């Protein structure tokens, strides 16, 4: 009884994967747990990744995907660096400009996604390329250099780019804030049910009076703005923006979200799961530096973790479905959720 309730939770698979990864590193890598827990490396990675993974996870629960975030991260840092670094405008204007660009790209993604039947993977692949090209060529055109430096004022440095205790990026606090807001959106506010319903069955969601189009556009705007935000923080922390970079986030966010128990086909997932999935990814990729395992194998471990985690999530879901079937009262709710 208890077990069935437990296995029905989307995050259970990700929690088990996290434990499995840590056990693996301790047993085979001789990792020192104290050192690992105290290290900022994986927390910083998780925070940067997590801020993007949260809205992308919500999109995936709603049955969509966004890979244009890979271009939005450098676009965000480039915009703030060009506006405030090259043109010397106040940093507030630079930040607002970068966020506005995020909103605009998200709007474009959302509009095309709602007006056509084209899968969002393809739409956002198109905007990924376009944004990448626009940022590269406008950096050359406006600043005459593909790398632009920025000297942010102290307040901006403190809010977006400070290192706490000399090693923890302040973006960790932002991640916590984002997580709280997303938790409220998905699990407390009525919007959450709408998102689940959309991912479950779009047509019936629309028939039930949910403004699916507006909701979808909003979710896309959220994800590209969040990516721009990560870019802004990077530029302010490191005093410069480079146009290269960001592509690695595409696969890393998808892996984090999916390890976190979100169903790519929509309708299933939780904020807690996404958080645990992000932490799992961060520990897998950074934790290897604390082990005696050769670093060359880290991609192999990421791949195996992903496949095992989704396999586990899948069997838990099946198990949950089976146990639910015995109790007709909840069946409907779960069916709608899928």
């Amino acid at each position, binding site marked *: 009884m208890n077990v069935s309730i437990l296995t029905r939770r989307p995050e259970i698979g990700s929690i088990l994967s996290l434990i499995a990864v840590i056990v693996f590193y301790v047993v085979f890598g001789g990792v020192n747990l104290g050192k690992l827990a105290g290290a900022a490396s994986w927390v910083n990675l998780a925070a940067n990744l997590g801020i993007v993974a949260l809205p992308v996870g919500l999109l995936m629960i709603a049955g969509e995907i966004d890979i244009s975030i890979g271009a939005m991260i450098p676009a965000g840092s480039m915009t703030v660096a060009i506006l405030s670094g090259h043109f010397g405008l106040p940093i507030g204007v630079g930040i607002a400009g970068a966020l506005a660009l995020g909103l605009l790209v998200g709007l474009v993604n959302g509009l*095309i996604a709602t007006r*056509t039947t084209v899968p969002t993977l*393809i739409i956002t692949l198109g905007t*990924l*390329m376009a944004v990448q*090209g626009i940022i590269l060529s406008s950096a050359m055109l406006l600043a005459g250099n593909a790398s632009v430096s920025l000297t942010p004022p102290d307040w901006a440095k403190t809010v977006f780019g400070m290192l706490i205790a000399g090693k923890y990026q302040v973006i960790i606090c932002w991640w916590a804030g984002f997580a709280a807001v997303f938790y409220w959106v998905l699990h407390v506010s009525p919007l959450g049910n709408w998102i689940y319903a959309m991912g479950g069955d779009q047509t019936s969601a629309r028939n039930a009076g949910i403004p699916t189009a507006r909701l979808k556009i909003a979710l896309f705007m959220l994800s590209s703005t969040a990516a721009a935000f990560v870019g802004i923080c990077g530029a302010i922390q490191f005093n410069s923006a480079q146009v290269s970079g960001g592509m690695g986030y595409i696969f890393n966010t998808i892996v984090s979200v999916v390890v976190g128990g979100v169903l790519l086909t929509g309708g299933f997932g939780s904020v807690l799961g996404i958080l645990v999935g992000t932490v799992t990814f961060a520990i897998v990729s950074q934790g290897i530096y604390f082990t005696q395992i050769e670093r060359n194998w880290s991609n192999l471990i990421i791949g195996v973790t*992903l496949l095992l985690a989704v396999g586990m999530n899948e069997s838990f879901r099946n198990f949950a479905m089976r146990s639910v079937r015995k109790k007709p009262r909840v069946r409907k709710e779960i069916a709608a959720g899928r």
Partner: protein
Amino acid sequence: MTTKPTAGITLRHLASRPEAGSFVGMIAVYVFFALMGGANFIGAPGISSVLNMSSEVGIIALSVGLLMIAGQLDMSVGSVVPASSLTVSLLAVDFGVPDILAILGGLAVGLAIGFVNGVLVSRTRIPSLIITIGTMFGVMGLTLGLTILIHGSTGVFLVPGDAAKAVFGQLIRNMFQVSILWWAVFVAVIYGLLHVSPLGNWIFALGGDKESARNAGIPTGKLTIGLYMLSGFSAAFVGVSQVMTFNAAQVAAGQTFIFNSIMCVVIGGVLLTGGAGSVLGIVLGTLTFCIVNQGIFFSGLDPNYGSIIIGALLLIAVMTNDKFRAMALALSAGRRS
């Protein structure tokens, strides 16, 4: 009076074909870059540039396109290319295996990875995007780890024998890579597979509706595994031809093929939702993609504009996909009345 309906039918027929949009797109970018790039782009240098690049990404795009018609994705191709070229080099250089066996070894790696992908996709309900991202990371890690374990560094140099070089890596008339001919072979075989053999209908059916395909007696599991093995094989083939052309294999190569091949397929009018698309469309899409990618260097424009053009083309291609259908329907309705 007699010619008009015929013209109408042809136009309607044309517009309703999935590759119509990609054909128009290809002509448009070709004319644009021909005007910008001048005689060099129109002549042999430009043609060979486009074809050489097309032949590599095109071989992968064909089988990735087939998978997309069947409603599946394959991200692992990006890691199969270096996995195969390194297998060939390691076998030939570090183990002294004859060229032909080393090449077969490289191709076998592709087939094996495809088999694993196919089995995982057909046996579970996990989306293929996720499974192939998993195998992509796995193969990347294995390639890097094993190469360093065996060879001690991440780049391997190989001097292929004359026969192997002639078959996979020679230049014809100085400018045209022999892989263009292989691309033609792949096009012919996959055209036969999709548009002539009964397998084609199965693939369309699989992409249209998996459940009813299975109910209709189509061996969906075996078909899926077969398609993944084909895409693994194609990527491995490109890896082999790269190592034969450039005499070297590198761990970090290949990532660009993942999104580049998907873009070719989509510009070619294949829907990711499955059930629609054609080999001709994929070929046109590949050519369009490579015309933009290479034309930019003949045009003297900032190469970064290329990314913008490709992104825009992709969005236009996918949006007109719906529109072309609607137009075709409207056109036929107009003729009737």
